[in-house]
């Protein structure tokens, strides 16, 4: 299954930065449909990297291959230098549709990753309680998912991913199923989370504004087959208020720039 094509990465790179996730020559076919073609990407530790592209460009497929939930047709993913063969404890996934167990309380949902690791109940509930408080859901521990709003459910999904203390958080359009106000609040929360936690975030979105607003680095994917078309490092001031940032020239120019590049993929 290994690609034997000569690739740029095989030549030694001097002063390699600390890349926690490396994607090497990754391709994915669904039957004869080529979803992703020869993706090479580095994800530096501690950054928030967005995968942005038109629908059907394979960004979720790429994320799920990094998660080990999908097997690549060719190429490989390295996490901390080790090839990925399946899901692992150093990665945690946040799902677009939240994927909460409707029969379980908030605290059991949040502690589920720890439960699967065989941690005793008292201990895992203590940890879960801490992360439930961290995402602002203290007091909702014994509620069921159907009693919560969409935004609150995704906070549960986020707390569950944080509770297992993974180095890499993989987020698949986590804010796409919540309303706009909640979405903006989430973006702020994500930014402050990134400041507090020493974690790497890989974030799939189809919203250009969202990607530019939250990312250290944006990977633009093209469509059919999905390839890396550009990598952008938005130079946005991070010290202003959200409204100041959203009115900032550089923020708006970056959005415009990306939109110009993506326009041709809109059919």
């Amino acid at each position, binding site marked *: 299954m290994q690609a034997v094509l000569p690739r740029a990465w095989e030549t030694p790179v001097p002063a390699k930065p600390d890349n926690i996730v490396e994607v090497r020559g990754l391709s994915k076919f669904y039957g004869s449909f080529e979803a992703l073609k020869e993706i090479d990407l580095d994800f530096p530790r501690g950054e928030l990297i967005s995968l942005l592209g038109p629908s059907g460009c394979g960004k979720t497929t790429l994320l799920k291959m990094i998660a080990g939930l999908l097997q690549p047709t060719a190429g490989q993913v390295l996490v901390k230098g080790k090839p990925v063969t399946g*899901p692992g404890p150093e990665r945690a996934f946040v799902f677009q549709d939240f994927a909460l167990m*409707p029969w379980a309380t908030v605290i059991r949902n949040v502690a*589920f*990753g720890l439960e699967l690791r065989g941690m005793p109940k008292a201990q895992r509930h203590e940890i879960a309680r801490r992360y439930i408080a961290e995402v602002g859901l203290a007091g909702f521990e014994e509620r069921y998912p159907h009693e919560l709003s969409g935004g609150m459910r995704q906070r549960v999904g986020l707390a569950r991913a944080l509770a297992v203390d993974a180095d890499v958080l993989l987020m698949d359009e986590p804010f796409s199923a919540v309303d706009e106000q909640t979405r903006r609040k989430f973006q702020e929360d994500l930014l402050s989370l990134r400041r507090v936690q020493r974690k790497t975030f890989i974030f799939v979105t189809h919203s250009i504004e969202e990607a530019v607003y939250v990312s250290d680095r944006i990977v633009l994917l093209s469509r059919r087959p999905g390839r890396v078309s550009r990598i952008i490092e938005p130079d946005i001031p991070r010290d202003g208020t959200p409204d100041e940032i959203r009115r900032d020239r550089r923020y708006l120019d970056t959005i415009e720039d990306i939109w110009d590049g993506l326009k041709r993929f809109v059919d």
Partner: protein
Amino acid sequence: MTLFGHRVPMMSSLLVWCLLWELIGRLDLMFLVPPFTAVLAAMVELVQSRQFLAATAITLRSFAVGMALAIVVGVALGVLMGRFRAADRLLGMWVNLFVSAPLSALVPILMILFGLGDTTIIATVFMFAVWIIVLDTQAGVKHISGSLVEMSKSFGAKPRDVYLKILLWAALPEILAGIRLGMIRGVKGVVIGQLLVSVIGYGELFELYSRNFLMERFWALTILVFAFAILVSELVGAIEKRIEYYAGVRQ
């Protein structure tokens, strides 16, 4: 319901039918239909008789054992068929055949296999109940979106965890619906089995009463068996209601 502007309490239609029964019984048209009050009197007498209590114990035991087997085997087969296409291909045809086949025809074969005893009755209950449980469980497991399974795998679930912590729970509404329908069929199974074997439990009593034209007792027993069937189904229905909330909210 209202009738001529008056509110009619629930179940009053049942009263009308009981009254009609009583009238026909009083007219003495057929020996098959004794007055309803006479049947009620027979019922009070019946439930106190040692014969009835012994028959009830035997019937309940066969029913419970047969149902337990049907639930264990039915859910396991259903999950298997819902998860693996090969199992579905191999077994689907038979399950669909048996779920609608007139299974009473097979009871004589069970008698040859298991003899004229409890085992045949248990096998009959099992055979009547198991297929619908398989079908409903399979439907439930097939319905589950990949999302929850994927979630559990991403957090390191082993195959065992996926089955016990995700699949069984996610399919629980359908599994319970299957069990409820299976129980109704199981009641049929236990009665039909006993009637055909006709030397144990209620079957023996039915045989005794109808042969000796003890129609009051015959009807009293019939009503009790019917009531049991409804009770069992309502009981599972009540459990179903408690988890109904999540049948609708599953993704």
